[in-house]
């Protein structure tokens, strides 16, 4: 068993008293890509948002259980620190419309008031954009607004932005659901490449995508963890009948 960076223990979550996640226990192996699958409304997004404590932005949210990052409970840490160590990319590309591409990439430092020298900034921007496979496309227009980029480019810009603080874990919440098919391939290649340096959790309702990119797969159904295993095993010999039905397209 590989060492895991991130562990979820007995996590339950609810909004306004409606239970969304029920007693989830999971671990995410280091430098692997874990896909979280399940039909709409099964709590996939809530699960990843509990990992970096983003769900707390909704006032009616409540959570119990623990999320351990390198053995340390994120619920005992400052949420600001947690979110710097755990990067996140959202469903719809959301670069900051008032900032240039350059400022978007460096936004994490700018927003949190960390001062950097010009050279350091240049280096981090270049590195992050290269990691996100966007450098060649935007290196000549770094100081223009990021909003003129295509959807796929914007999403890679968001990935660069999430990478710039060198997080240990990267959460991708259906990162390709609002993107055209051609650009999807590029992003998938990118995230497979990225797992060399960062542990990745990807939420997807696209079964084929999970099969293509992930090492481990998790199947959630109605807020319960039904099954988790190596992707190959889960897809070829699912243990649970519900997993089998979901994978064969009977529902979802």
């Amino acid at each position: 068993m590989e060492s895991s960076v991130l562990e979820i223990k007995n996590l339950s979550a609810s909004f306004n008293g409606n239970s969304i996640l029920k007693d989830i226990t999971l671990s995410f192996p280091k430098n692997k890509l874990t896909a979280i699958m399940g039909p709409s409304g099964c709590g996939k997004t809530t699960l990843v948002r509990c990992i970096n404590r983003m769900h707390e932005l909704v006032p009616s949210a409540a959570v119990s259980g623990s999320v351990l990052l390198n053995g340390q409970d994120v619920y005992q840490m400052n949420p600001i620190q947690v979110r710097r160590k755990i990067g996140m990319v959202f469903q719809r590309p959301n670069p900051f419309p008032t900032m240039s591409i350059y400022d978007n990439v460096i936004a994490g430092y700018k927003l949190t008031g960390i001062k950097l020298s010009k050279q350091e900034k240049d280096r981090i921007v270049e590195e992050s954009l290269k990691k996100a496979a966007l450098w060649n496309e935007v290196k000549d227009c770094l100081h223009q607004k990021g909003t003129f980029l295509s959807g796929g480019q914007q999403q890679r810009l968001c990935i660069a932005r999430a990478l710039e603080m060198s997080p240990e874990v990267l959460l991708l919440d259906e990162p390709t659901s609002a993107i055209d098919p051609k650009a999807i391939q590029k992003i998938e290649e990118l995230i497979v490449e990225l797992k060399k340096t960062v542990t990745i959790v990807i939420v997807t309702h696209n079964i084929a995508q999970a099969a293509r990119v992930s090492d481990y797969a998790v199947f959630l159904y109605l807020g319960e963890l039904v099954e988790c295993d190596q992707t190959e095993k889960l897809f070829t010999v699912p243990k649970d009948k519900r997993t089998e039905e979901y994978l064969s397209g009977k529902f979802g």
Partner: protein
Amino acid sequence: MRSDTFFRLLLFLSGVFLLILLSAIFITLCLSSLPSLRSFGLFFVIGRSWNPISKKFGACPFLIGTFLTSTAALLISLPFSLSISILLGEYLNNRFFSAVFKSVIELLAGIPSVIYGFWGLFVLVPIVRWVELKIHAAPYGVGLLAASLVLSIMIIPYSAFLSIEILKLVPPEIKEAAYSLGATRYEVVKFVALPYSYSGIFGGVLLAFGRALGETMAVTMVIGNSDFLPKSFLSPGNTIASVIANEFTEAAGRLHLSSLIELGLILFVLTAVTNILGDFVVKRMSFQGS
């Protein structure tokens, strides 16, 4: 079928009626201010003396009074209205308290102008007078400063509401993006929400300015009603609206009346222009948001 056509016609006519009403007001103002326009021409806006006895009417003191009080009111109210909107939009998660705050703002907006005037006269003016005594200025109490303060309080609800609506236009996705990078609420407001809303807030400022320009009753009560060019921000003065309210019923002669109506025309055009501009800027921002 027939009732539908009839109903449509009715609606259409009400719309047209509004249009006619607006044009009629405008035309009446233009026609009635003709005598004054003919006699004074450009002198009307640059002339410094407003003298019903010698029948010379120069409105410069009122234009300056209007501009100064409205601008000062705006500057005083902006920090408050922005803070209120940020508090309600970003910080106050508790539904109950934000509902309470919102109804308080609404109540403030609903207080009749004359009551603000009373309050200004009995509370604010003595305070201003006390300050004037302390700094060895002429202790009028009433004047441009008192008027600006009352005005600023009166436009806070209006501009707070505008700012709340404008901050709501900031897409939640980009705020989430900032939070996910480890930004605090303050940083989200400073680096993401406010920069996104600058143009909209500017439009809101223009709309609030339009409001302040035409505010009459409370200003008339505390501004001191002096027809002379104000010497300082502490001296008594008059705004366009307050001079009309003051002198309209006792206007001596056709030219005096016509001059007051020309003032009304100027106010009408000024408010219309600021409102249209402000509306345009705010709309453009909400458009860009969607």
